[in-house]
């Protein structure tokens, strides 16, 4: 087959933003930051067509691509003033996969590639911290062994020496971690290409109808050294507060740290204010750039950055994760700032977020005056009240009789799940925030407190309890909860007005007088057994002969579809929840 001129390696220099399908999402995002005039560590990309060349050539990198990669590394050396594999002034690189659409099964990032015995020694000398140098190298060996050589290793913990890790890798795979930096690089690039054909990636593509003949690009980027000196470090910056949504940047800074340290949460971090005292120019540049990125994406950004000897580099930017309260506030603020319109604002708020903002809460004054019977780890947020019951069967029968029940257990096993479903809240003696009980209660949305201490559950039996899954406290007696309402919340009120204007369904909070309303909670009870989710046809059938309906199912995807197909009016205590679900499922009318 004749091919057009081959360019096995592209340099990302900010002069243009290459096609996302050609270089993958990762490199595309770097190129975009560069084109905005922001500084990122120098990078080159091996584009997607090279993946096909490699797979067609029976998984080998031909001479042409190998020599292009060597030139690419020379390019990075020129731009960093460092040299790959040279202990006196070492350049280390990261290697990442990057398909146009990211998918499971693609190779994870390898950091600090190019690390050798001699470089570990020179890092130990230059940093004055041999333990740190050894740990960095051990991390590299672990990642290379696990990700490139597919060794079965326990998750990384500081401790084992690089030699021990290499031996373990050799034992498990029969392969060793190359001492030569270029060999490391070529192996890592091959591993990225191979990962396109991993079982997981293939099944993902089968599910989503993505063609198998695409491929992935490989981004090779110079590492910046956040651990170089006392004017170096790494951090993350949120352009707004991710918990409250307040339009103030929120940052975490780890002086002397490398990127993975913040992510791994292994070191103590400090706030932005302390960073500013130390590195005022870097901080003001960072805030400037953060503003540029937020405006460019019209979305709150979560930005990873590193400072090397006072010079700021951006590593990555993406939409920030946020609390439900923050999501709602930010949607309204971005609208007010003219960055998004109504429809986009509605698309940014999920029904789950609204449900969470509206969850009943404990009045802090009431909680402070109440007596605490037990305290443990908060496992699922929310507050609920009921009588303490030990036996799951009893929980089921009493709840069926209309009582509010709190299931209190020493531990929980799968045969307690029916009791957890029946209960309003769950308390356990043992276990932590990552126990089976915690996972099940979160999946059910039942407030829960775990690990209250051996024997405590038994002492709660028969008592009236208030369980606060946010603070991890169990209070004596049934306390009054504060009900949140859309009308009382000015921000939710704005969103409710947008939703009412765009809703594809007719939703009201009170039925028209004299109209008979179908109650789907009652009509569909027989269908709510395990393994069979209720489908649109069943709901449509239940709606026959009615012009209005109410019921929890109408705030689900199937429910809004059935309501739309039948043209009924939905009666709901909180129309906003149904409208948001309808907008997500059916789209905006006329759009």
């Amino acid at each position: 087959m004749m091919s057009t001129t081959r360019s096995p390696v592209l340099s990302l220099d900010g002069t243009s933003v290459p096609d996302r399908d050609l270089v993958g999402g990762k490199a595309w995002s770097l190129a975009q930051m560069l084109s905005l005039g922001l500084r990122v560590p120098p990078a080159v990309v091996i584009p997607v067509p090279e993946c096909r060349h490699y797979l067609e050539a029976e998984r080998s990198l031909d001479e042409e691509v190998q020599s292009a990669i060597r030139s690419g590394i020379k390019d990075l050396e020129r731009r960093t003033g460092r040299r790959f594999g040279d202990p006196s002034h070492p350049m280390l690189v990261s290697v990442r996969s990057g398909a146009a659409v990211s998918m499971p099964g693609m190779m994870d990032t390898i950091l600090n590639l190019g690390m050798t015995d001699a470089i570990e020694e020179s890092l130990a000398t230059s940093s004055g911290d041999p333990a740190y140098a050894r740990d960095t190298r051990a991390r590299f060996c672990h990642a290379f062994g696990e990700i490139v050589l597919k060794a079965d290793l326990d998750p990384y913990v500081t401790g084992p020496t690089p030699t021990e890790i290499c031996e373990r890798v050799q034992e498990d795979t029969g392969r060793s971690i190359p001492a030569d930096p270029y060999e490391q690089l070529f192996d890592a690039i091959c591993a990225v290409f191979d990962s396109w054909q991993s079982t997981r990636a293939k099944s993902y593509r089968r599910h989503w109808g993505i063609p198998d003949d695409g491929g992935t690009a490989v981004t090779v980027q110079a590492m910046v050294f956040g651990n170089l000196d006392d004017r170096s470090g790494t951090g993350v910056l949120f352009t707004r507060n991710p918990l409250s949504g307040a339009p103030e940047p929120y940052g975490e800074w780890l002086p002397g740290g490398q990127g993975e340290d913040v992510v791994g949460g292994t070191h103590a971090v400090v706030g932005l204010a302390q960073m500013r005292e130390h590195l005022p120019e870097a901080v003001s540049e960072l805030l400037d750039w953060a503003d540029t990125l937020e405006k460019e994406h019209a979305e709150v950004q979560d930005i990873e950055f590193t400072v090397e000897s006072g010079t700021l580099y951006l590593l990555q930017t993406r939409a920030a994760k946020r609390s439900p309260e923050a999501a709602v506030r930010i949607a309204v603020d971005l609208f007010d700032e003219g960055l998004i319109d109504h429809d986009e604002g509605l698309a940014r708020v999920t029904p789950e977020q609204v449900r969470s903002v509206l969850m009943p809460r404990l009045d802090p004054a009431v909680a402070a005056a109440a007596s605490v019977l037990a305290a443990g780890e908060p496992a699922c947020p929310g507050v609920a009240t009921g009588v303490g019951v030990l036996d799951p069967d009893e929980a089921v029968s009493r709840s069926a009789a209309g009582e509010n029940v709190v299931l209190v257990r020493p531990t929980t096993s799968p045969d307690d799940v029916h009791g957890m479903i029946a209960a309003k809240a769950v308390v356990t003696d043992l276990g932590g925030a990552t126990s089976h009980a915690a996972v099940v209660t979160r999946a059910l949305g039942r407030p829960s407190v775990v690990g209250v201490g051996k024997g405590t559950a038994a002492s709660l039996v028969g008592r009236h309890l208030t369980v606060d899954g946010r603070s991890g406290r169990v209070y004596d007696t049934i306390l009054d909860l504060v009900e949140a309402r859309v009308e009382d919340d000015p921000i939710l009120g704005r969103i409710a007005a947008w939703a009412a204007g765009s809703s594809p369904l007719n939703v009201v909070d009170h039925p028209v007088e004299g109209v008979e309303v179908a109650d789907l909670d009652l009509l569909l009870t027989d269908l709510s057994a395990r393994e069979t989710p209720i489908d649109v046809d069943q709901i449509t059938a239940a709606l026959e002969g009615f012009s209005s309906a109410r019921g929890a199912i109408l705030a689900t995807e199937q429910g809004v579809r059935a309501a739309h197909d039948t043209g009924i009016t939905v009666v709901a205590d909180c129309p906003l929840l149904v409208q948001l679900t309808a907008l997500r499922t059916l789209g905006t009318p006329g759009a």
Partner: protein
Amino acid sequence: MTDLDFLAVHGLAIRKAGNPASVAVLLGADEADVSAALDRAVTAGHVAGANGTFMVAPAGQAWLTEKYQTVFGGLRADGDLLHAYERFEKVNGDLLALMTDWQTMPAGDARVSNDHSNPDYDAKIIDALGALHERAERVVGRAAEIVPRLQTHLDRLEAAYDQVLGGAHDYVSGVRIDSYHTVWYELHEDLLRILEKKRQE
């Protein structure tokens, strides 16, 4: 008495209550055979049943505890199985942490419920679940060399993961379906019962 007479009650006990179909899925056995075995267990007084749903009776719990000694006694001293179980507990810890990452997410220095509005975040966890599944295949595979029946759980985990890859995200940790966590929880319980180990959480 057949092996299935014992296994049907054991399988039912893992779920506490269920119909023959759900116990058959859990055991990887034929539904009609399980149904017949459960009927015999009702006659023996080990199981209570009504309208096709069965539940282990108190007498059945005591009977199981006694049977475990004789049926699983040899396995409880099997070094290879115990070793596989130890590895399983390690993977279990990581699985529960991963489930927690799926259900909650960081917002600054706090953790909040994951409302699944951030596809990139979810995609990373789905990928990590795949990597964990590969570890589970090795560990549970080793146990299944000794107790072949355990392979069924692995097949069910595979099916749950496949659903997740196809976009049915409830199959990560949903409770009322055979999600990855539901199946894992049952596999864990099965192993604990075989080896007479105490649950730590």
